């Protein structure tokens, strides 16, 4: 299983292929990509040690809550362009419901607590994407 914060892109198909196993009945992936909100590019910044610890905690929580076979989370940081991959969550389970539920749980928890921030660049300047206070 891969839990990482990286400047590198990821290969979704290769990851899916590598997680197929006889007992796996479903793989749910969430691929977050950079949306064009009138931006020219976006910069992602992380408190890497804390964010990695938090991602591992979220993975452990997901395993406690749902009967999952594997969990991979790759969050990119650095300067990205519209259409670039930003986040991969890949969850394998025996059946579809736990795979979907596990993937959604992980995504919502990432948005709540993982120490990553986004700064958007537009032709008029730059702005921090506001986070929600928890």
């Amino acid at each position, binding site marked *: 299983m891969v839990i990482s914060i990286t400047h590198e892109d990821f290969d979704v198909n290769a990851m899916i292929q590598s997680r197929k196993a006889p007992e796996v009945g479903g793989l749910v992936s969430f691929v977050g990509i950079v949306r064009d909100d009138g931006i020219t590019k976006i910069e992602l910044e992380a*408190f890497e040690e804390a964010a990695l610890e938090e991602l591992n905690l979220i993975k452990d929580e997901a395993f406690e809550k749902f009967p999952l076979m594997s969990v991979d989370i790759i969050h990119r940081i650095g300067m990205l362009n519209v259409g670039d991959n930003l986040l991969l969550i890949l969850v394998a389970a025996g059946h579809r419901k736990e795979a979907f539920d596990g993937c959604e749980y992980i995504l919502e928890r990432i948005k709540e607590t993982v*120490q*990553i*921030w*986004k*700064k958007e660049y537009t032709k008029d300047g730059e702005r921090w994407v*506001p*986070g929600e*206070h928890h």
Partner: protein
Amino acid sequence: MIITIKAFARFREILGSETTEEVPEGITLAGLLEQIAGKNPKIKTALYEGDNTLRRYVILMQNKKRVNQEDVQTIVLSDGDEIAIYPPVAGG
């Protein structure tokens, strides 16, 4: 004693990504924040409301453990502690 301060996102732009602060023995986390705010009006405005209460959205970690804002007055820092300051997260 020496405390390391790490700041992220909009706080990094004001405080710098990593700085060290010399503080007296027995200082509380609230005392550290007041000390750094006293050095620079921009830091003060970023951290505090007009009535000198800590802005609600300021998130603090001590040695990578999240700190409740209600506890800043009672947390006594130790030499070598690392304090992280950041705004609400926006990943995913």
